[in-house]
């Protein structure tokens, strides 16, 4: 009974925190930078959701007649790729791929990073030393090499890309979370919670985490942008999603040989990638500048 009512209370406190976050988002939407970033992200999200309805062709359907003349035309607005597949449709379905891989990968990296970093910062001692040293080792690897090792070891697939991104981002996130926790744990309200006999889990979830939200959110936006680039790079190195999955990075590599003749095949996927990355950075930038509470 007590448990359920206190769980309810905590849910409520998270709900109010969530609604405050929404208010904050609404407030920053008045900021033109944030508004631009947010609208690009919302645009691509809409495209991803409505892909089956708005895409003019099947993204994997091969049309040999179109392959003969792949330049943009009235029937194929953005033209076709070397296999004669409609570029517009592939970009539309590619948004779906991006919006699946990036949130899942970055989300799990943050969950893992926070789950390691906050206890490391809060408890300190050998657990902190162990987690920090392992993080350092992973961070010492160039990210790209790490990806290549992981993907070649595990094989290219959606799940493995998510695993690779999670493993390479989690140490950075955990380091950030640890740093924030280190400074927050010295606050008097943490001492007050300890004097009430609160559990460590409660202190980390209810007293510390809500106050770490701001910097973590900025980091999340930045990392989401990098991930879009990374998934593109992996596709470019042939370690991306296996064909014929529509994937922006993969589209660039498939058409890179024809760059001098059929520039559009590389340009349009590149524009799509850049727009999402820039949007993420704009959003992160405005969140950072927002004085917040």
């Amino acid at each position, binding site marked *: 009974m007590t448990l359920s009512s206190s769980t309810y209370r905590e849910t409520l406190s998270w709900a109010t925190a969530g609604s405050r976050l929404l208010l904050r988002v609404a407030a920053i939407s008045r900021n033109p930078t944030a508004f631009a970033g947010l609208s690009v992200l919302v645009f691509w999200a809409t495209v991803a959701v409505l892909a089956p309805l708005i895409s003019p062709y099947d993204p994997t359907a091969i049309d040999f007649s179109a392959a003969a003349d792949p330049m943009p035309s009235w029937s194929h607005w953005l033209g076709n790729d070397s296999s004669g597949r409609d570029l517009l449709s592939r970009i539309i379905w590619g948004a779906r791929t991006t919006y699946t891989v990036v949130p899942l990968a970055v989300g799990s990296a943050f969950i893992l990073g926070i789950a390691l970093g906050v206890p490391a910062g809060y408890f300190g001692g050998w657990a902190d030393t162990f987690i920090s040293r392992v993080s350092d080792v992973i961070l010492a690897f160039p990210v790209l090499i790490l990806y290549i090792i992981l993907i070649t070891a595990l094989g290219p697939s959606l799940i493995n890309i998510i695993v690779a991104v999670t493993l390479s981002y989690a140490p950075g996130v955990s380091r950030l979370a640890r740093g924030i926790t280190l400074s927050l744990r010295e606050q*008097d309200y943490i001492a007050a919670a300890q004097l009430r006999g609160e559990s460590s889990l409660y202190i980390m979830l209810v007293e510390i985490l809500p106050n770490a939200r701001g910097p973590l959110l900025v980091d999340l936006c930045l990392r989401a942008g990098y991930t879009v680039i990374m998934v593109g790079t992996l596709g470019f190195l042939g370690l991306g999603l296996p064909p014929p999955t529509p994937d922006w990075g993969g589209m660039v590599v498939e058409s890179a040989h024809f760059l001098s003749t059929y520039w559009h095949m590389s340009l349009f996927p590149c524009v799509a990638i850049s727009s999402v990355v820039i949007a993420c950075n704009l959003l992160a930038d405005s969140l950072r500048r927002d004085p917040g509470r």
Partner: protein
Amino acid sequence: MSEQMLLSVQDLSIAYRKGGATLPVVRDFSLRLAPGETYGLVGESGCGKSTVAYALLGYLSENGVLTGGTIRLNGVDVTTLDDAGLRGLRGGDVAMVYQEPVSALNPVLTVGRQLVEARQAHRTCSAAEARMAAIAMMQAVRLPDPNTLFDRYPHELSGGQAQRIVIAMALLAEPKLLVLDEPTTGLDATVEAEVVDLIADLGRRFGMGILYISHNLALVGRICERVGVMYAGRLVEEAPAGQLFSSPRHPYTAGLLGCRPSADDRSARRRLATIPGQVPLPGQVPPGCAFAPRCQYFAAGRCDRLPDLPLEPIGGNASVRCLRHAEIVPEPIIPQPAAERPAPGMPVIEVNNLVKNYASRRMLGFGRRAPEFNANDDISLSVRGGEILSIVGESGSGKSTLAKIAIGLEEATSGKIVAFEHEVGSVRAGRRPRPLLRKMQMVFQNPDSTLNPAHTVGAIIARAVRRLGDRQSSEAIRHRVDILLAAVALPAEFRHKYPHELSGGQRQRVGIARAFAGNPEIVVADEPVSALDVSIQASIVNLLLDMQACSGTTFLFISHDVALVRHISDRVAVLYRGQVMEAGTVEEVFSPPFHPYTARLLAATGHVSVPEPANAELEATAQPPVGGCRYFDRCGLRVEGLCDRMAPPRSQRSESHFLACHHEFSFLAGQPGANSNKVQGD
């Protein structure tokens, strides 16, 4: 006439732009300062004092605009100077000393280099000449061993030493006007007294004009010839210091004077005078007299009517901005005496031979190994039920460490603390039984970190009630939160507010409500008011006294403020470098003071009735003598060969009073600090 003036500010008005609106922060401010004169500017935070100071140096923040008036320094109008002119002015004709000495010094350069730089920036001289000037100035600001200190880095200095360096740096340019903005606020009381006396002395020696800004009227009165009181961006009263203190004419001045416990009623345990309400924000200043909403002499239809109240001369070189100054004799709002103190009960906490060492660590085995730091060294004390026991001492005396071990935020290295029949010396809060946690709660020092910014006031107090109280239904908890908010004099709507919407004093009230949520038997208050303005301090102290009187809760009050401790406590323990120097009832310890350290603390409160003990300027060395008295290196009464060799005996003067000193009581009672007080006291 104005040719002779060093500084003459005429009708200065400054506003801040904020979101399209222009909010006036300083209005019609006029000030005249003769060469060599010392002028004090006082008022609560948010009254515009610092803005005036910055304007004198031609420095306004990005959104600040000068909306009128002139500032003439040595006949030059500062407001019309270009960048090059301002560079010559700053540090040359005017120098400024800020509140935080450590952040005013560059941490990667040695102190000496920074002093030399300050000299060479404004005087053409060789490096050797600049070095000589710097060393001479370090001697002038009474720094011990200038040649050694010259090559030190700022982090190797104490707060008091760092502030002396900053002052020396300001003086090296030989300024005609020295502006000091709360220069002693972060310092210990004894150090504060020394720095203030130093500033007064330097002013006389170098013939500088000094503008001293502070929220502490008593301090300003100690060194200034004239004092201006600022409220909501305007001067409300200006008078020679003596006159202002003996007969304040503005109700605000009287209120500020009454906020500090006075020296004379030493055992009269009553509440402190307060000024209700708070300083209006820029742009929300009421029409008519700005102080009207907080004034007990407010006359409806008159004080709120006049659009622009002038600063009227009232004779004796004084002026006041009050419509009713001729009709009233303002007095601070005298609060009703607190209830009679109950006799203390049985001991509830016993501290026996408590030791806390902080081991030092070397990085990878390199570097100098600092010796272990003894925060608490063999402390024995008892706390009795229902009493107010104060632990007083300077920073580094171990008073907070003692409180933290007792409450369960730190563990003792050795020794025992028995609280309510539980041994808790090495048991942190997380491992203490729930009923014991309920009995002991804490009020914290820093209003900015005492409340979690992510939760509402209501949620914060409700959580404490749920964990510590015996009521569990949501309705009962809600009701209890309302009662607690009412008890700390906050409106019930505050339950929906977040901490950042509250002022410092209001946050501290919420922190007190949280501590009292489960009706604790002991509340530990660690410097609960030291981060607040004097007027807010008084109201928080009154609140604590009221809560204590209602509930009979035992209070362990940690403070460096001797005047306050003397005012509110039943018993006092004086700590120095981790050891109890003296303990007893307030009367036994302070009237008169026996222990040389107690005498020194008392002298630092600035009361004229307590003369400085001999050798008051002795500085503490980094290392206390091994085996001897901890206070040896600063003590004016030390006996070489005895005090530095043998630990002082603990001599019992009465059942409740003991002190640790080699000297006899009769000898100590004959010392200057003790003597004059004794004459008055007996």
